[in-house]
């Protein structure tokens, strides 16, 4: 954030989405399935971003909302100004992570994403047992889904051994060139 350009301008450059287009009709919020759960519903987030106020911006990065957003794209589907809110949300999540601003309530969500990506990183495919294990390890929710898992196993929905992508090196290199690449800004 060292550069002097305004927050809306930076968002435009980084995501191609112009938040100044939002005229606060609220249609996105009205249609959002999780609006009532969010600390700042989508249209509110848009407003905070428009203000070009550092504090407001950090408020957004701190918010729970950006992690609750399901990217179901109801909002953009109905937005009269065709503002790609999910894209903004993606960007904000990444920024929130980088800045270490992740909202406490959102920790489990982040933990899940992390566990998910680890699983891919090491096997190339999603290894659900590993995923859940990793998730629990991160959140200490040892007991969660204890009832579900065995049934899943019985129903043959769980592989105890992970599937592997043969060319794992390639997957690892993808990761090292993206997530684990500090000097690459998200474009």
């Amino acid at each position, binding site marked *: 954030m060292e550069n002097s350009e305004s927050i809306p301008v930076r968002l435009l450059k980084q995501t191609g989405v112009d938040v100044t287009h939002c005229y606060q009709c609220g249609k996105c919020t009205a249609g959002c399935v999780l609006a009532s759960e969010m600390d700042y519903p989508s249209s509110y987030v848009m407003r905070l971003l428009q203000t070009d106020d550092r504090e407001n911006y950090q408020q957004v990065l701190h918010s729970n909302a950006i992690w609750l957003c399901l990217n179901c794209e109801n909002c953009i589907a109905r937005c009269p100004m065709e503002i790609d809110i999910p894209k903004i949300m993606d960007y904000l999540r990444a920024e929130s*992570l980088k800045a270490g601003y992740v909202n406490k309530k959102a920790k489990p969500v982040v933990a899940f994403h992390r566990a998910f990506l680890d699983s891919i990183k090491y096997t190339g495919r*999603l290894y659900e047992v590993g995923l859940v294990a990793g998730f629990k390890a991160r959140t200490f929710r040892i007991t969660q889904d204890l009832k579900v898992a065995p049934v899943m196993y019985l129903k043959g929905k769980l592989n105890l051994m992970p599937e592997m992508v043969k060319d794992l090196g390639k997957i690892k290199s*993808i990761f090292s060139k993206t997530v684990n690449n500090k000097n690459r800004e998200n474009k």
Partner: protein
Amino acid sequence: MRIGFYPGCSLNGTSREYNESVKALAKAFDLDLAEIKDWNCCGATAAHSVNKDLSLSLPARILALAEQQGFEEIVVPCASCYNRLSVVQHELTHDEALKQCVTDILEIPYNGTVKILNVVQMIEKYMQDKIEEKIVHPFSHSVACYYGCLLVRPHNILQFDRLEDPQSMDTLMTKIGATPIDWAFKTECCGAGLSVSRTDLVAKLSGNILKDAADRNAKAVIVACPMCHSNLDMRRPAINSYLTKPVDIPVLYITQAIGLAIGISPKELGIERHFVTVNLN
């Protein structure tokens, strides 16, 4: 003809019955689905929630592999994968620079020429005109076709069906003798990726969906997305504890419904893998 098949992770795990039923259906309509060799995960919500480049590279690799292995068309049953792959293909076709930087990351050529089909499109393209003649047990139930978010949105990219109140699944259901109901939650999100991390929210969202379907006395919910299925099916205990009045309405994949209608055995379609037991008729 030989068509590429990208199962995606969940179809090899939690949603293998979807995998089974797709294959069973393909067999019945002698459609040659060949799995893309050495495919990887598309990254799903997690990837694009955390890192843009990653969320582009993972699907791009899959598409590149498909090209390498000479597929012109690939079937992607998982709505989430379908959505990711389509979106990435669209973004890369419309941004040369991005395409370049992704191919650099991949180190394999990517042209973005592969045509991506979701399950409904596959059925529409290769099966629908043959369905009627194959029917042995008409699927004569009132059903709620649940499209979810990722099948129809973003519309400008997917260009699949209409945005609000889509019809394609309903049309297919009528072909197998079912009566699709007109309901309100066709494209409302089920909670998707929050399944594990925020089960409470998933219970609420999926609960509202099932409630509306039940209120309008649908006898089954038809889906085309493993995430929707696992949320509506596997999360049923949580859902029912959220709903005051529990619902026991089963959730079937569209491939299973059609499979049953044309006389494929429930076993072959993996019906018994569901948490919510399917006892129709």
